[in-house]
């Protein structure tokens, strides 16, 4: 029986973090020993491999600094002749311009996500403070009645 080939996907990991560098993320992937192809770029990484492996790895990398690491799919595999600069005589590859524009906006988006997370934590804490247990309520009522 012939072995069915697993679906191969490619993802961009764009890093806009003060704590994590593309090289740190690349090292983390090498350590994980998943059979994926990693390409380090100026904005982050390109990871290519079997869908399950790539999705697991990307989630691990995102957790390094989750509000400042962004991920998107890529259609072409890394080094594809139709897109790779090496075979096209240099210059930015098609699709890079929009990515570059968006990368400039990522620190602000990351800060907004941080704020959102902080707000959620605050509301959760408030909720935890506000919640009154029935046993406590019983005690309060008993104390009030005992007066």
């Amino acid at each position: 029986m012939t072995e069915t080939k697993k679906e191969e996907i490619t993802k961009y990991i764009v890093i806009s973090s003060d704590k994590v560098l593309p090289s740190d993320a690349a090292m983390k992937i090498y350590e994980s020993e998943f059979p994926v192809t990693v390409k380090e770029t100026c904005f982050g990484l390109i990871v290519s491999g079997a869908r399950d492996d790539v999705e697991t790895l990307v989630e691990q990398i995102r957790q390094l600094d989750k509000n400042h690491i962004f991920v998107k799919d890529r259609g072409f595999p890394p080094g594809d002749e139709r897109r790779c600069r090496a075979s096209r005589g240099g210059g930015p590859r098609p699709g890079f311009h929009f990515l570059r524009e968006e990368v400039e906006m990522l620190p602000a988006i990351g800060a907004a996500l941080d704020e959102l997370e902080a707000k959620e934590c605050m509301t959760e804490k408030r909720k935890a403070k506000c919640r009154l247990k029935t046993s406590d309520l019983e005690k309060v009522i008993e104390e009030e009645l005992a007066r």
Partner: protein
Amino acid sequence: MSFLAKVFIYPINSLILADLVERFGHKPLTMMSQIREKVTSLSLDSPPINITPEDPKLGLKYAAIEVPAGVRGRMSLIGPLIEQAESAIIVENPPTDFGCVGCNRTNELTKYLIRSKGVPVLEVKYPESDEEARDFVNKIVAFLESLPKEKSEEDEKAKEKEPAEKEGKK
């Protein structure tokens, strides 16, 4: 992986939108997934061709024959995504509308089709400052959280299997 809802995004290859949608558990419908299917299929013969002569014909479903072949070719990729969409996020005035998504007629047609589809649509302006970025993220997060929770892919597959099993028993 199970997702809540399929969200169409415009610009269709946006990193920020695709990431935000996926971050909050939904499935972004992006051009990249369409391109992947196209360029990794064995039927494609030689680089740099990634649109075949068949594509403008498929695009006829969305645009008339008088419309340029470029629009129809693009619509052959974007059209199926619009059909799948259960909600949409449209960002107005993105800074770069050139390159492969730079066809203004295709973009207008895409936005028109998604607006007339009757699914929930969020329209926001592309942020240019930190404050605008905060509003942008808050609006998108509120929209994504308000979306109806769809059944997971696994449930759908299980449902699809059930009738097939029943038929098999008969």
